[in-house]
């Protein structure tokens, strides 16, 4: 009955999983935007080998494309928000989508983050991953906008 509990789960060749902290995820989302947030949260999904996160990533990407398309070609849908937020609409929507993505993945990985909090193991340094994701995210947005413009013309 207990045999499955006494099967080793750790491997000498693979280091134990360490997740990027929620603090770094938040900052990448806030300053990097939704594409950077998707990439950065994807790193944690990859470390955890969670295949169930793939549909969430795809949904996030679809929302991002939809948002970009709507903002470029159907801005009238956001008239109410324009009245509320003025010219900050684009930035606000971008940030809120990014934070929503970050929040969603935190909810999916919440147990792992809570478990990590019980031990004093430090999370991996986020700097390189964060910068790469933010640069890549910016590039993706530029490419997406160019692609949408190209499709429209």
């Amino acid at each position, binding site marked *: 009955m207990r045999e499955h*509990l006494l099967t*080793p789960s750790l491997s000498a060749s693979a280091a134990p999983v360490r997740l990027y902290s*929620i603090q770094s995820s938040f900052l990448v989302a806030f300053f990097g935007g939704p594409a950077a947030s998707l990439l950065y949260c994807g790193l944690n999904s990859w470390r955890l080998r969670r295949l169930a996160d793939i549909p969430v990533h795809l949904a996030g990407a679809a929302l991002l494309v939809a948002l970009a398309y709507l903002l470029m070609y159907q801005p009238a849908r956001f008239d109410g928000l324009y009245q509320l937020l003025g010219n900050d609409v684009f930035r*606000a929507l971008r940030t809120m989508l990014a934070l929503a993505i970050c929040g969603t993945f935190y909810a999916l990985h*919440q147990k*792992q983050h*809570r478990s990590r909090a*019980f031990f004093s*193991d430090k999370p991996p340094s986020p700097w390189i991953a964060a910068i790469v994701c933010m640069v890549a995210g910016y590039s993706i947005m530029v490419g997406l906008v160019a692609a949408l413009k190209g499709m429209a013309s």
Partner: protein
Amino acid sequence: MNDQALLSARDYTVQIDGLIERGRYAQAGSLIGEALAHYPQDSGLLFAAARIDYDSGDADGARHTLHQILAHDPDHYLARSLMVNLLQDSGDLPAAELLLIDLLRAYPEAAFQYARYALLMYRTLHIDKAKALAREAYRLDPNNELALTTCLIGDIIDGRRGAEQAGLARLLQGHPESENTARMLITHLVGRGRYRAAKRIAVELLKLYPNSREVLELVVQLDALSHWSMLPLWPLNRWGWIASGGLYLITLLGLNLVRSQAPLFSSLATYTLIGYCLYSWIYPPLLTRWLKRRAGL
């Protein structure tokens, strides 16, 4: 030498264990040197020496002594158990896991070892397996402190408040004066945003272990969290990044409202919010650093 005055190895072990329990490592070290001069191969004394080394921070010395014991007696339970600690401390978690599994195969009713294995699995984010191991530890010995603790950790991770309360109550009932219980109570209170209450518990812990740097750091952290000047940051401390996201939204809507309805106060509102953001970033680490320095950390 007068043989009648010579203690038995067991008597030495009792004395040394007593000194270790009281944290008198220097005296224990002196006595172990004397004891090993008479009984150099006694595994009980060698284990006591390893414990002294481990508790005093000499991991290499402890490891060397444990290898010595296991070379003569590979099944020595206590030596293997302490070796698990050493392997975990050095980051060799796969080897620690293998050794724990060996111990559990040799002692299948050892609830304490199941609980330790559960902690290792929590640490390496194998949550489901950790919870199963914790349940097994609890099944084998419902009064075991570590078994209760690992079950409680599972409840906290799952966010099951009712079960968390019940688990905490069991721990308080069975082990009210344990340091471990105090720490779990502090975790519970901090999770609820009750920093002052958590600090009171930590202070009681400090009264028991005033020499513990870890406990002092905990008190300082909670002192910072419950400091009067941190009151405006209570929502951010309590709800973390959700509160930060909410603050962003409020900022956005609020600033635009002020700009449209009361443009005279627009600058003031902007600067207030910027000031609050800067204060939330800069002030907590400064306060913590100042409190740590004041505490001699």
